[in-house]
């Protein structure tokens, strides 16, 4: 159910920006259709919480598991999420384990 307040159009902030007549719903719907081709709201945040576009995580893995760990991480990549991973070997000359650092960045 939509929530629309009845008040004089001049009291709306939008009335100072747009020439659209307040009751011309089809013109507004058409303008929104064009605009939504350019911007999609994928997430919405609560009042007072800034949007976060990236998170990071790190963990340790044994050399034998490294391949499958990275495979799982890379599967997270999508149109909405860019995932990158860095691997740091520990142990000389043969690595005993790897520290895997993962960064997931969102496409706004």
């Amino acid at each position, binding site marked *: *159910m*939509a*929530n*629309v*307040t009845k*008040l004089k159009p001049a*009291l*709306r*902030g*939008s009335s*100072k*920006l*747009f020439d659209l007549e*307040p009751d011309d*719903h*089809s013109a*507004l*719907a058409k*303008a*929104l259709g064009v*605009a*939504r081709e*350019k*911007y*999609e*709201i*994928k*997430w*919405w*945040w*609560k*009042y*007072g*919480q*800034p*949007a*976060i*576009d*990236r*998170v*990071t*995580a*790190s963990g340790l893995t044994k050399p034998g598991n490294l391949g499958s760990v990275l495979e799982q991480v890379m599967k997270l990549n999508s149109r*909405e*999420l860019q995932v990158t991973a860095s691997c740091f070997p520990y142990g000389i000359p043969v690595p005993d384990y790897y520290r895997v650092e993962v960064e*997931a960045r*969102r496409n*706004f």
Partner: protein
Amino acid sequence: MGPTGDAVNVIQIHPTLRCNLRCQHCYSTSGPERTGALEIGALLHFLTGARHEGFNAVGLSGGEPLMYRPLPHLLEAARGLGFVTTVTTNGIPLTQRWIGRLAPHVSLIAISLDGAPESHDRMRGQPGAFQKMRQRLADLRAADIAFGFIFTLTLSNLDELGWAAQFAADEGACLLQIHPLERAGRARDFDLRPPDDLELAYAFLEVVRLKERHPDLTFQLDVADRSLVAREPCRAFAISTPDPAAACALPLAALVSPLVVQEDGYVVPVQHGFSRDFAIGHVDGGDFRTQAARWKRDRYAAFLELARTVWSDIGPAPDHLPFTNWYNAITARSSAGFTPSVSPSSA
């Protein structure tokens, strides 16, 4: 799952309602006269449990979080636990000394901005508030801290968003976020009007126009797109109630996010002011994982029932009203007239 997706699971903390200002639109009625603050030890204990429950971001709000003395310690500990950290401030107390203490531990600082200087000062209830805030920005840039602005949208101030966008771009902000006013706390006392769905539609048009004008600035309009929510009900938690054993096996962040730690210590889902009937726990309530397990078992089903009710409430609307304030809808419904078929307190 939920309005911010699976990758970022946020806990917003209100450690105190103490503030240097008495803003007209403050939903928590914060101000200089408010005393009391959450105890740092209890918060750190809670965050440790919450990290195990899959949460990975912490946002500090208030009140004015810079009035919370242990803030640097809290942020440092949160970062040490692996949380991304943000602070939302009115900017005035953001001295060079504070910036130096925060810089190593904060991922993003968000500063409230209510429009052109005279509008900002009026909303903030303090002449000169805008200028004092603006003077802090050079130090933020010098410290190389990412910062953005949060603009509170009312029914009557959309025409100032363009000014705010230009200001944000000129000052080197990375983000301009637009939040619809919540008619709660002092906003109700001042009879401020939140944007209705018609004004949100126009706000969307304005944001698209401004995005083209300021391509380097990230815009985020915090409204729910009805068609997206209809296609993907899980974004609004409108899913069937799973088998209790399956829900209990998942980390809490996979079930509900964001969480809010209120100044009274209650941990509630979604938003400040959410009915305590759905509270997940309390920061003084002992091990948070134990409290979370109890919530999953006893109250999660009622929360989902509430979410499904709100989802069906907001669903149908004409084509020219595609957006709505979901947070407001579910928070209001949580405390007014919603009786789950499974009572949260008796389940």
